[in-house]
């Protein structure tokens, strides 16, 4: 019964009666012409309130989650999501506020947004911040769109290319294309740093900008970042910072100080807002002086008398505009505000420090039990890469097999097969909120699995065994598309 769909629990005429107002006489709807009315009621589930509560409570138990397991997903920063932030964001005054409420009825919300903008400016070293983008990818879009607006405003219309290191997140090239640019990939060297010569060669009058993450998705700090900035700037391009890995350097180095012109932040990573099974996120953007005119709207501003107001396209007509109907993912921003106030200055600095400590500790311990680091001579940032190319070749046990087997040890698998340039890899990010014991348990699980891979490789290749389902037939899923249930 647990695997039934809510539709299979449906029974004609059943309903959760308390949840809707009573039926109205049909004549109350007489103003709607019959030809615009639907002929049959929609095929939604007809179930009782308890059936719904029981169904979704039971479904929830089929998930791994930070509240239940260690979740070392590289580049995803699965840290503890403070419950206090949830309660604060769900306060009735915030929850019931209409996004178009007048400023007279929005001072509480606006003050939080204004302060959050300032906090984010300070931690990134940028000159202005807009909270509008609703996810990292939309922040990336806003960032590159601002780069384009900048060049356009100068009449500099020869710039058609965005440079992107080949280790980058897939969102980077996809975003460049959405902004009308071509993508030129730049190789990353053996040590995880960008191939500086190749980069320089790629720079030219066609270069609109560079998108990069630092620390990179190789889990190392790009040591030549200043040289890179210089090369791109000298070619007339701007530098975009993908803030997915901001957790690694929070309070230690600021993208603004490294020479970046624009940055997005993933508040659902660095600022501990929940991932919600795939969102919502929030992807604020910060900019240097020259991009200030292009920030997406709306933003919060403060008047001389201390009151707050909206900054919108009517006062900032050079803005790239609105990216959503209203003000982005306000509830996520409130949770991030709570987190920022909780941590304060010292707390921010500790994030970078302890996430880096945890990653380097975990890397060393894993190496000691026989794992292979992709960049053994480098410091880990807040994350690092292991490669199981040897195991794949010698034992036929792939990174995917090990990932699936980890689930049996009640450990969520790290990010697998990313970045693409390292074969059979794990990208592992423990975050600052996991205890040493939790890290040690992960090491124990990995050691046990490596042992199993040597002794019972076929078993490992069939894992997992303890989850609600065994490995799924993805090929069937894609070939025989079944995307909605029918009776």
């Amino acid at each position, binding site marked *: 019964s647990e695997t039934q*769909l*809510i*539709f299979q629990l449906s029974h004609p005429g059943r*309903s*959760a009666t308390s949840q*809707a107002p009573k039926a109205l006489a049909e004549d109350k709807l007489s*103003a*709607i*012409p019959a030809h615009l009315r*639907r002929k049959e009621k929609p095929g939604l589930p*007809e179930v009782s309130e308890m059936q719904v509560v029981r169904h979704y409570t039971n479904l*929830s138990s089929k998930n*791994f*989650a930070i509240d239940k397991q260690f979740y070392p997903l590289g580049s995803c920063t699965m840290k503890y999501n403070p419950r206090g932030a*949830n309660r*604060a964001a769900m*306060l009735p005054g*915030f929850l*019931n506020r209409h*996004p178009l409420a007048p400023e*007279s009825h929005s*001072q509480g*919300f606006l003050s939080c947004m204004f302060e959050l903008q300032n906090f984010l400016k300070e*931690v990134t070293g940028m000159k202005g911040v807009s909270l509008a983008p609703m996810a990292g990818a*939309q922040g*990336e879009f806003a960032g590159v*769109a601002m780069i384009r607006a900048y060049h356009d405003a100068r009449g500099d219309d020869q710039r058609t290319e965005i440079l992107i290191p080949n280790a980058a*997140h*897939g969102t980077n090239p996809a975003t*460049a*294309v959405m902004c009308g640019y071509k*993508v030129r990939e730049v190789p990353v060297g053996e040590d995880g740093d960008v191939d500086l010569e190749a980069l320089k060669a790629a720079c030219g009058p066609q270069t609109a900008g560079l998108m990069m993450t630092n620390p990179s998705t190789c889990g*190392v700090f790009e040591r030549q970042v200043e040289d890179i900035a210089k090369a791109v700037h000298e070619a007339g391009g701007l530098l975009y910072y993908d803030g997915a890995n901001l957790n690694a350097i929070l309070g*230690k180095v600021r993208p603004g100080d490294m020479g970046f012109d624009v940055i997005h932040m993933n508040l659902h990573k660095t600022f501990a807002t929940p991932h919600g099974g*795939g*969102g*919502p996120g929030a992807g604020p953007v910060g900019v240097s002086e020259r991009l200030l005119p292009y920030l997406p709207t709306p933003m919060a501003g403060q008047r001389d008398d201390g009151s707050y107001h909206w900054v919108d396209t009517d006062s900032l007509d050079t803005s790239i505009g*609105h990216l*959503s*109907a209203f003000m982005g993912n306000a509830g996520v921003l409130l949770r991030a505000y*709570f987190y920022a*106030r*909780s941590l*304060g200055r*010292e707390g*921010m*600095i500790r994030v970078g420090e302890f996430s880096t400590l945890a990653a*380097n*500790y975990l890397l060393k311990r894993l190496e000691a039990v026989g794992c292979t680091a992709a960049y053994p001579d480098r410091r880990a940032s807040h994350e690092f890469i292991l490669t199981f190319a040897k195991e794949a070749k010698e034992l036929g046990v792939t990174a995917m097999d090990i990932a699936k087997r980890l*689930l049996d040890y009640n450990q969520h698998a790290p990010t697998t097969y990313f970045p693409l340039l390292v074969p059979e890899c794990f990208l592992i990010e423990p975050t600052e909120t996991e205890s*040493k014991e939790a890290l040690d348990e992960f090491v124990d699980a990995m050691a046990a699995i490596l042992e199993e891979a040597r002794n019972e490789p076929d078993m490992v290749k069939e894992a997992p065994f303890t989850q609600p*389902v*065994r490995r799924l*037939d993805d090929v*069937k899923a*894609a070939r*025989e*598309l079944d995307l*909605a*249930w029918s009776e």
Partner: protein
Amino acid sequence: MPYIPHTPDDVRAMLDAIGADSIEDLFDEIPSHLKAAGKLDALPEGLSEMDVTRLMSDRAAQDAGAVSFIGAGAYQHHVPAAVWEIATRGEFYTAYTPYQAEASQGTLQVIYEFQTLMTRLTGMDVSNASVYDGASGLAEAVLMSLRANRKSKSRKVLVPTAVNPRYTSATQAIVENQDVALERVGFDAASGQTPLDALKPYEGEDYAALVISQPNFFGSLEEVDALTDWAHANKMLVIGVVNPTSLALLTPPGEWGADGADIVVGEGQPLGVPLSSGGPYFGFMCCKQKHVRQMPGRIIGRTVDMEGKQGFTLTLQAREQHIRRSKATSNICTNQGLAMTAATIYTSLLGPDGLGNVAAHCHANTQALADKLTAIDGVERAFTAPTFHEVVLTLPKPADQVLAALAEKDVLGGVSLAGDYDMNNAILVNATEVHSEQDLQLFEQALKEVLA
């Protein structure tokens, strides 16, 4: 240390295992002149949960207390307690995107059920797992229509001015860098609808799609069958923009005209998501089966595991950025999973009859409100077309001035159409099932006083 578990002993042991003397040593690859130490002076001291909670409670209280009749794309509805008590369970709230399917069957099944719900409401074949919101959803639909319309080479789309102007401006911002043009089609000043007449100039022209909003921004109901058939006759796809609550009563876009809409998007907020100052909401996006490979965003499929047991998994990932990179259908990655989860619970709780009753009360309450307000001297309905749960009224005084005066009485009387439509004396007003007779009277009384 807030949220950080490590004791000095732990730190020492960890540094020893690393072979480092201090945490600072771990940053030795960063050029020292770049270090930010001491630079975060603009940040305040950290506060305890109690103190931040008190601070934010005080601020939230500042914004509370008014009775609101603002709609314009975000609507007050009763949200059953069960919805968020379940959606904020740690298992949903703190899970990541379900990349490890075996450990994410909860979220995956919820999405599959959501997809099914949305196809049932819209009458379309397939749905994705959500986009950011209704406005950005329209942008994605516009881009998708360019890919999906094999009969058109145009990068132009027809967008009525009666579509929510916030949707249009966000769409403009998102698509303009790809040389996509939105051609505006006017509305009929008497009816408040987009008339076939206004489309005449485009007959036989090459446009990728026509956008049809039902209801439109004015709350007016469009003649969707005629518009849809016109578009198809002119080789354009139809992008429907719909309110999900209204679909309990109105013809689903899959049945518009002879062949139905091709792509349907909308704001999912009315389905159990609180107003919450504008988000997180979620956009829904459905299409006909033949266009599924052009649809952006995550899609979940039902399949079987190696023992033949039913299971759910991310599918058609070859459309997405993490596989396809620069050739992806969109850069979207994180979507609005939690809000979508809430909507799935909400819609299951309401069911077809419950959602129908909600829709009917919204309509009836708005009618009753309009009747009350138009009984005041000088207040009139601006348009003649039938409406769902929102209506434009013209006032005998400038809208901005009236709304400000109402706000002083803690009545938020709708939005002004002065900016977007140069209708300086017009307001857009909404009522839903949450408004009691007393609420309506409160508005009536306040407006009387303001106009007196």
